[in-house]
């Protein structure tokens, strides 16, 4: 009887295994097919995107050359590249780029950190958070860009006022995001930690902060764009340096080619900083792929 009892499972596992193997190979084949599809799809997308980009630049160049678009207003790609090159070599374009991105990044980092700390701090006291929340929302609604003249007078026309602008643009968004994270913390997780003898600071560090990370991260992409907008407006109001100031100056002397250079440069800065936040996001969430 014992022998029988042993035999049956062995046979059964044998069958199971062969089934399993078959299933696996099928799955593998499917995966490979999917991958191939994915690769060819990706290639098509990239090629398509390049075609669209090249077409736009070509049309821009072509239409301004034949005069359908007025090249005084629209400039054209080759002139923009030329003007940009001259501005970089002979002018201060590179310093201006460093100035603008520096102010943006510093303001963004400060705003995100301070905002996150404020948002997370709301976990500690519901009295404090309930008193403060309406003011946060109200302050979020204030058009902070309109405050720029005041800030420039308060903090001078130098680097600091630009950083402050970028900071103000980001801090409340970051705080509200972190606060949403805090509000969504699973109460049972807190309970479980208390049952393991935890004090409040343990719960804060081991549950509240990590479970709010995805919420805080979700505000990064919006915030980097807001920070850049803040810096540029700060430069518009009054500045001696920066891409924003360059655009303003070029507009005043009617050098529209240079305005276009500024706009294009800002677009690239914006894209690079966006990619930077995507990278930070990936890094912060690298352990979260299974949630």
């Amino acid at each position, binding site marked *: 009887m014992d022998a029988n009892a042993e035999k049956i499972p062995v046979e059964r596992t044998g069958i199971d295994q062969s089934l399993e193997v078959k299933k696996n190979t099928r799955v593998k084949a499917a995966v490979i097919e999917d991958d191939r599809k994915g690769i060819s799809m990706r290639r098509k997308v990239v090629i398509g995107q390049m075609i669209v980009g090249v077409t736009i630049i070509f049309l821009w160049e072509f239409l301004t050359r034949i005069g359908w678009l007025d090249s005084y207003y629209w400039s054209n790609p080759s002139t923009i590249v030329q003007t940009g090159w001259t501005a970089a070599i002979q002018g201060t374009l590179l310093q201006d780029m460093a100035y603008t991105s520096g102010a943006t990044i510093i303001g963004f980092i400060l705003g995100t950190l301070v905002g996150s700390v404020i948002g997370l701090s709301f976990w500690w006291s519901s009295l404090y958070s309930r008193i403060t929340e309406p003011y946060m929302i109200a302050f979020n609604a204030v058009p902070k860009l309109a405050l720029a003249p005041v800030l420039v007078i308060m903090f001078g026309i130098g680097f600091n006022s630009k950083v402050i602008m970028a900071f103000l643009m980001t801090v409340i968004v970051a705080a509200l995001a972190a606060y949403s994270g805090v509000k969504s913390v699973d109460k049972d997780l807190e309970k479980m930690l208390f*049952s*393991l*003898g935890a004090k409040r600071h343990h719960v804060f560090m*081991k549950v509240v902060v990590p479970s709010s990370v995805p919420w805080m991260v979700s505000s990064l992409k919006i915030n980097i764009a807001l920070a850049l907008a803040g810096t540029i407006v700060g430069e518009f109001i009054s500045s001696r340096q920066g891409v924003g100031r360059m655009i303003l100056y070029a507009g005043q002397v009617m050098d529209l080619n240079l305005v276009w250079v500024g706009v294009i440069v800002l677009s690239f800065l914006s894209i690079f900083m966006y990619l930077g936040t995507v990278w930070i996001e990936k890094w912060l969430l690298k*352990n979260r792929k299974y949630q």
Partner: protein
Amino acid sequence: MNKLEIVHNSKTFKKNDKEFCALQETNMSIQSGKFVSIIGPSGCGKSTLFNIIAGLLPPSTGEVLLDGKNIVGKSGCVGYMLQKDLLLPWRTILDNVILGLEIRGVHKTEARERALPMLQKYGLKGFEHHFPAELSGGMRQRAALLRTLLYDKDVILLDEPFGALDAQTRLFMQSWLLKIWSDFKKTVLFVTHDIDEAIYLSDEIYVFSHRPGRIKAKVEVDLPRPRNEETLTQASFQHLKKGLLIMLKVEQEIS
């Protein structure tokens, strides 16, 4: 010697200015090293009672005595596994299990060294560095229970740990739990809806009445240990089961 005594505990919640009694006056005394089950209809206050014992919820009246000392409102005196597994999704299984040690101030590396052999011994070998979402329900329960065990208190409360598992996994987990219980010599309080499970595991069973909860009966289970699948078919097992079924049926009918 009574390890744990529950004296005149009751709990009334206030909901929109209305009083709502979740647990009527309850008295229990539990001896050291016993396996004690609580069964009762849903909503009769079993989790409420556990929350009170664990110090997470202040009772409206009464005391909880651990080794003769009042622990009402003091959390962290007993191990408590809540109704959900509550593993932190951003931590690996190993790092989840060492949570209690970490809170006590043990260094992470040392805690991991201590926990690793336990994971390997109790059926989580090869999954130490996986994230909870990659594990089956049974494995997650095991991890949550090991976390509670590693916290190393004499009394552990288990609130329906196997409630969400299928019948077969459940049977396996029950034997697994009995092995752990005999290895670690803990005093266990165990909530379940499953009569078979209660009889199979326990020394004593408390039957709770329907809402608001109150102890309706206490049944001693004198089946010999160690228990195995054959225990389930013994006549005395069937006899106990019949008695409990009738009691619970009456409760269901009232509610």
